[in-house]
């Protein structure tokens, strides 16, 4: 070991070619391993890891189930006759909440925030164009407009989903609305 060190030291300082001038005994260097043997290592497989069921949002609930859920005892017990967003309150410092709600409550298949929005917190509330009972809760009965996210507390992603679902529902005729009046110019259709 000392010989090796000496020879390398000499090589560095004298800049001569040791393989020509000086015979160095070939040595194998053993590096001490501080890792566990492979058999003992637990393989980290994030895909198969099971999260706590209270935050796991990977299961996709079909729209039909959601429609049945809105008529069920469990829903009645949880929400009563009120819209699902009425009792929700955002957590923020100060009297005035931030102008925009959070981007999304669910990241990587799990609820990644505390106090998730009214739709993200209940996996059986699915925003689908056929789920009219749920969609109508977000439409004002007086003016017919869709409530803003600042009123309902939905995260941005769910709010966009809601707008798309309502637009689709109106397109398929699941939600009816008052159509703007069309005035006709009779002279274009029949010359009297």
């Amino acid at each position, binding site marked *: 070991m000392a010989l090796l060190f000496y020879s390398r030291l000499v090589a560095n300082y004298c800049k001569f070619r040791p393989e020509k001038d000086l015979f160095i005994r070939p040595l194998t260097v053993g590096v001490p391993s501080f890792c566990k043997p492979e058999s003992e290592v637990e393989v980290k497989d994030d895909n198969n890891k099971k999260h706590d069921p209270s935050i796991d949002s990977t299961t996709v609930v079909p729209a039909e189930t959601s429609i049945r859920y809105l008529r069920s005892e469990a829903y009645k017990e949880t929400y009563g006759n009120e819209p699902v967003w009425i009792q929700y309150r955002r957590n923020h410092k100060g009297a005035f909440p931030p102008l925009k709600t959070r981007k999304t409550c669910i990241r990587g298949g799990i609820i990644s925030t505390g106090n998730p929005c009214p739709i993200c917190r209940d996996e059986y509330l699915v925003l689908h164009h056929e789920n009219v009972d749920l969609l109508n809760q977000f439409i004002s009965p*007086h*003016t*017919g*407009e869709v409530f803003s996210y600042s009123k309902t507390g939905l995260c941005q992603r769910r709010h966009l989903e809601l707008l798309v679902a309502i637009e689709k529902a*109106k*397109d*398929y*005729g699941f939600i*009816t*609305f*008052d*159509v*703007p*009046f*069309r*005035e*006709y*110019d*009779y002279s*274009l*259709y*029949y010359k*009297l």
Partner: protein
Amino acid sequence: MFCRSCNMSFKAQCISKINILRHITNQTTGVERDPAPVFFNANVQQLLKKLTRVDLRTVFRTKRYGVALKTPEYKFLTAEELNMVMKEAQEKAEQKLQMPPVVKAHVDEPEVLSYDYELQKHSETKFVFTDISFGISDVERTIVVRDLNGVLRKATPDERLRMNETYFPKPGRKIRMPHMFEKEYLKRLLDQGKYEFVLDRACLQFEPDQPIYQDITATTYEAVDTARHYSSLRSTRHFGPFAFHLAWNRCIDNFLLDLIQTDRLDETVALIQLYHIVNPEAESASAKYKPGLEHKFIQAYVESDSKKRSVLELALQANVELHKQRAETEAGIRRAHGHA
């Protein structure tokens, strides 16, 4: 080259003639004659307005357009001011009850402007030229198409609608037809009784001379007539065309029955008069109406032209009895009060 251009122009004309023939053979009863002159006749318009039965509460009900509502205004008025305001309300109601026109379905036969076969294969797509100058209506706007074979022609009605919607979009109208006008979704809406919504949206989305608009309106009117939900359309702009459609297709019997059973004799008479104008070849068309002899006039129609004779006769009989009883009761009350 001369022979080829001849052949192509002949082919184009043949195709257009075949289209006309196909349209004529596919026509249902009543579409061969043009309904527009009859619909826009002053007498017919008056009768349709009478049948619509203007109810100001229904006409001026709150409409939710997604805009913030205005708070109601309360005013103190004298009798003259009130009369003036009521007159204005009647005029406004007439505007709101403007009937969508009933016209013949258009035939897809665009006029060819020039045959430039030397231009063919210059492009893989057609070119559509639209005149977007201000001040021209959608119907009069010039829209021409250069086809792949070099022919310059005027645009078909469907192409016209598409270009008009692209450059001059109307609020609420979509470029692509909404799914709710497809058969299964339309049936679902009609079963739920949303007739006015379907008709309003159809008015906005389509032109009155489009075949699809005529299909949708016909389906809706039939659904209303079958279910006897006349009150859903009454006092709306669609009742006039609905009554016209029934008279045009000679199936006013259900409607007539409803009017007789609700003791609306003036409207019954109006409906039969409408039927006579729309179908002058009807058997009872010669019968003249004299005020006070409604039952006789209705009887004449029921005997000659109705398809549900027995039911209508029964209803008419019941109505005659009702009027008799009323007259007797009134006479009795007059005698009791000491009048002659």
